[in-house]
């Protein structure tokens, strides 16, 4: 498949590579040594264990959106520093550093494009930018994307990859959970479908708001999905977590997601779902 090659050409020179440099790398799940080029050809999936390596928002656009049809919007929104936040560094310095190393202005891409010829609003989070954390910019961009969905009556597809809310913006960040949810409440009233795709990892307030509010929720195999992070839970209960805990398969088993879909089947699956959720038709005519 050529989708990744295509997307690679479009990468900004400074955009951080998802897969570490070097000809070979080790699968973090099964330990298999994989030829880098081979991995790229296979949608960044380990052919031995089907582990899905993380890919970025641009890669999801290439994977799911018809070539050349994506129009990104609100790319010029950047974080302010409402709290004058400083830990060992100033927050604005950290933001500038993240912009430099990722080539994007915050942790999400929003835009419209065609999926198998059907116009959708497509939102993809970028884990490499501040761990995909949600602050004012991410919340506003998602909210604007939802509004675009409602105005154009385009289905919404959102890819989550996030460690939760961004603490450097304090309560402004926490309230992005409320903000995005209120926008999604309007979307629901307009009866426009929302498909949520959870990728590795999706945790914290992100999971506990818009990610879990899809009409249909899909996860990639093996993704870590939860509210509390594994480290926090381990600390709380004082024992090791069972194998597979908070992974996609665990969530499916417990009834919190609709399905697990291999990356190679994603576009087809979402396309079929959108067909079911949007098409208004009368039964086929038997007499013909």
């Amino acid at each position: 498949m050529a989708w990744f090659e295509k997307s690679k050409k479009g990468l900004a020179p400074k955009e951080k590579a998802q897969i570490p440099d070097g000809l070979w790398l080790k699968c973090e799940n099964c330990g298999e040594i994989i030829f880098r080029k081979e991995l790229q050809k296979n949608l960044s999936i380990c052919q031995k264990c089907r582990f899905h390596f993380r890919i970025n928002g641009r890669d999801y656009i290439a994977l799911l959106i018809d070539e050349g049809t994506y129009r990104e919007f609100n790319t010029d929104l950047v974080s302010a520093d409402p709290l004058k936040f400083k830990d060992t560094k100033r927050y604005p310095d950290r933001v500038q550093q993240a912009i430099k190393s990722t080539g994007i202005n915050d942790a999400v891409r929003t835009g419209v494009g065609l999926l198998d010829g059907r116009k959708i609003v497509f939102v993809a989070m970028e884990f490499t930018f501040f761990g995909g954390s949600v602050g004012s910019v991410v919340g506003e961009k998602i909210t604007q994307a939802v509004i675009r969905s409602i105005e154009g009556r385009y289905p919404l597809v959102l890819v989550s990859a996030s460690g939760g809310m961004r603490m450097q913006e304090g309560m402004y960040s926490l309230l992005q959970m409320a903000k995005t949810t209120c926008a999604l409440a309007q979307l629901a009233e307009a009866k426009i479908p929302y498909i949520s795709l959870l990728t590795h990892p999706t945790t914290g307030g992100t999971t506990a708001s818009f990610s879990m509010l899809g009409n249909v929720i899909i996860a990639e195999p093996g993704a870590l999905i939860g509210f509390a992070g594994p480290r926090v839970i381990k600390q709380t209960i004082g024992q090791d977590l069972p194998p597979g805990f908070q992974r996609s398969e665990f969530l499916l088993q417990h009834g919190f997601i609709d399905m697990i879909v291999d990356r190679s089947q994603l576009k087809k699956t979402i396309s079929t779902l959108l067909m079911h959720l949007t098409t208004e038709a009368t039964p086929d005519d038997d007499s013909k």
Partner: protein
Amino acid sequence: MHERVALDFEKPILDLEKKIAEMKALSGTSQLGLDDEITRLEKKAGKLRSEIYSSLTRWQRVQMARHPDRPYTLDYLNRIFTDFIELHGDRSYGDDPAIICGFGTFEGVSVFVMGHQKGRGTKDNLYRNFGMPNPEGYRKARRLMQLADHFSKPIISFIDTPGAYPGLGAEERGQAEAIAGNLMAMANLRVPFIAVVLGEGGSGGALAIGIADRVLMLENSIYSVISPEGCASILYRDSSEAPRAAEAMKVTASDLKGMKLIDEVIPEPLGGAHRDPDTTAENVRKVLKKHLTELQKTPGEELCRLRRERFMKVGVWEKK
């Protein structure tokens, strides 16, 4: 008498008060002429109190918000509501004592009340899970706020939790879905809804009952995206740096009022709510009544529209 738990910065005041109480006891039984001395010490205590409590650091406010003697949801229920009837269970898994739900009468109005409930003492705290709800607690709240909506009853929520419980079972039973579902339920309510942060507003676990038309905070309560300890352990790799994290995240009621993220700060008596729960409850009653009266003038559809609009505006960003 109940032995007060003293925070470090409260100690000088409590010591002085103890001394005054002892002298008073003595002067009552003897003719030592201690009255002048008592008056002098009482003056001194008053000065000390206003000095200490008018300049609390953010971390000291965090400690006040977590004070083991601080009044909790039930303490307010007992003081400002009548005919309270507690309702239980999420109808699918269980009941959660970390969240209390029920109907009560407030100023002549039948309202639905929900609130986090911390325990008093070890045994009670284990029962209440230190006010940290499991998914069934949030789902109970969701079920009953929808019931309130169904019968057009105003909703009052009391927020006081370190956070949603981060346990194995909580994740198994979908803590994230439980919270997300509550956020959506609150975005859809067509009744007046007021939230009051009583003590700790711990992250998503607090917001899960907090998307209200009016968000009020007691003077010494806090509301934050992550606990100061959690923030410190990530940013400074040391949870004992929590005081620094509390400063950086600006977690106090007056901070959030300044950012226009909450509507009103409810004053506490000098020394904090735990020094005088009756006066505190009276302050809460007055402010609740004012806001409820205002909200009741607005039709439900309009309330819902305004609530969504309010939260959809939150955020600060720049255009490059």
